[in-house]
């Protein structure tokens, strides 16, 4: 590192030690914190207000100015949501859990298997196949939705949870992410020596790879769970009209109709958001890491 003597700044201007410093070495001043706090409040406000309406009475929701203080009606509103006759909200939450859990577990398993093969095993066509995996990342899957619906119809899966689970059992991003992680986290010698000792590939995966990639499993698991839980378009199409959809489709049912009771709708929305907020509080660090490491490094 060379130090550069900056030209003396005009008095009252920027302090000299600020100059030539990388931003990440510059301390945030009060303006930085003020701007970040404002941004954070804007980010959190819709969530906070969702909670306010979910705890309010009809009068409080429709007054001017709108109330911004939580009421004490949460239990009442929730009871109404959970005892509704035409939307089985409890069942929809359970469905969401089933779908997100199955998809997460299978994604972790299949993606780490494939990632291991691409990172540490030698086989013909390895690199071209990996390029194929990366290319599939750019395919806008939603555009095949009409044909996917027809396919599911032929399988007889439309309207069942199978239709919502099957297309998401393994992801290209997951394979790519696991490959990157395993390449760096597991030394080749370890795999080689286990092979010398006559361990089968599956055995190597189970006793060497899996223990070494726990952090990556946590990251990919959280990202997958969040994405699956929030999926709306495909479940809406395939679960249309079933009694027991996922919670996102149930929310849209709650909000449909000629007379919508918003405190009830948002109490439901709040319940459907709560699990993710818990995940963010518990695993926020991992989610941040996943997004930052998933970024394409030049």
């Amino acid at each position: 590192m060379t130090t550069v003597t900056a030209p003396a700044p005009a008095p009252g201007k920027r302090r000299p030690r600020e100059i030539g410093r990388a931003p990440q070495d510059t301390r945030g001043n009060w303006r930085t914190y003020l701007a970040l706090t404002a941004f954070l409040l804007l980010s959190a406000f819709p969530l906070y207000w969702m909670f306010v309406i979910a705890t309010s009475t009809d009068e409080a929701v429709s007054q001017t100015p709108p109330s911004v203080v939580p009421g004490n009606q949460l239990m009442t509103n929730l009871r109404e949501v959970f005892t509704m006759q035409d939307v089985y909200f409890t069942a929809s939450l359970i469905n969401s859990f089933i779908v997100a859990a199955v998809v997460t577990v299978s994604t972790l398993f299949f993606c780490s298997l494939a990632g291991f093969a691409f990172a540490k095993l030698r086989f013909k066509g390895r690199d071209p196949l990996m390029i194929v995996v990366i290319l599939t990342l750019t395919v806008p899957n939603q555009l095949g939705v009409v044909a996917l619906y027809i396919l599911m119809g032929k399988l007889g899966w439309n309207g069942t949870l199978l239709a919502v689970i099957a297309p998401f059992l393994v992801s290209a991003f997951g394979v790519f992410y696991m490959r990157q992680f395993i390449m760096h986290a597991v030394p080749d010698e370890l795999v080689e020596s286990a092979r010398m000792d006559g361990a089968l590939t599956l055995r190597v995966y189970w006793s060497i790879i899996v223990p070494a990639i726990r952090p990556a499993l946590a990251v990919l698991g959280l990202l997958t769970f969040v994405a699956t839980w929030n999926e709306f378009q495909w479940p809406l199409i395939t679960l249309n009209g079933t009694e027991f959809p996922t919670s996102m489709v149930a929310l849209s049912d709650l909000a449909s109709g000629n007379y919508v009771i918003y405190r009830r709708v948002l109490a439901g929305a709040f319940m459907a958001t709560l699990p993710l907020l818990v995940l963010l509080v518990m695993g926020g660090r991992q989610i941040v890491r996943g997004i930052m490491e998933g970024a394409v490094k030049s």
Partner: protein
Amino acid sequence: MSLTRNAPPVLDIPEPRPPATPPKHKLWFYRFDTKRTPYVFISPFFLLFAVFGLFPIIFNGVVALRNWRLDDPDLNGWAGFANFERLVHDEDFWNALGNTFGIFILSTVPQLLIALMVANLLNRKLRGTTFWRVGVLLPYVTPVAASTLVFAVFFSRDNGMANWLLSLVGFNDMNNPLDWRAYKWSSWIAIATMVNWKWIGYNALLYLSAMQSIPKDVYEAAAVDGAGPWRQLWRITVPMIQPVLVFTVVLSSIGGLQLFNEPMLFEENPAAATGGSDSQWQTIAQLIYKVGWKDLDLGYAAAMSWALFLIILIVAGINAFLTNRLGGGRR
């Protein structure tokens, strides 16, 4: 990527070690394992992608060239390009295309610019780094279905918070409130607000991760001409993170042109899928849903999907090219 700090796992290799020359059948077995197992490991991805990813996209092309109605299974057979011809003369399609692009521009340009600003703030030495980074992800983990319903209340005409806030600064009369859903411009702004809210933090983290891999001595060079933080950002940081800029622009183009959830749930009655009383904000993805599952014309919906696919390809390509030029000219 950091190396894991765990000690390498201890292998419980059964003692004594296998003899140097294992029996013949075992040798064959090991050779089979090294040769074939990798393919077994990667096959789930390729099989599932072929069935649920690739096949639907190709089959979509077949459906688009046929008559395929959900309410009249007997009406099938080749339609040739009839669906596409109909598309060209379909006012609904052009209206939806206009809406999609309008909302796309209103939601992408501010989104990426603000994300850049936020990333620049996060790129300082801060107390509670993790807290800020996790905080900006609140909108990202919130289900779109849930947040859109909050915004639907926020932008309501009577007693809506948006109108009340506007009246505070004198832009709106509470006795004659703005009906956000009535006009193209206002409904577009409302929907773009939701998209911006959701994605700014996510993109900020992508930019931040690129910013942190810029070598520090590049900034020292800037000291010579005494560039302040603002000029540093535009003259050094932005050109240096250009690949990620291109990446986010392409990602936003692919996502933004398929916008579905927000316009669907902004509706007072989401089941209708019309995108407003007069389709003021109906996007193409929404129109595909309506044509396919409300009008039950899957053939036509598939043709629209193909058209949207081509449009996305073109737009993402043009945007990538433009972003490249923007950064490249500065080097």
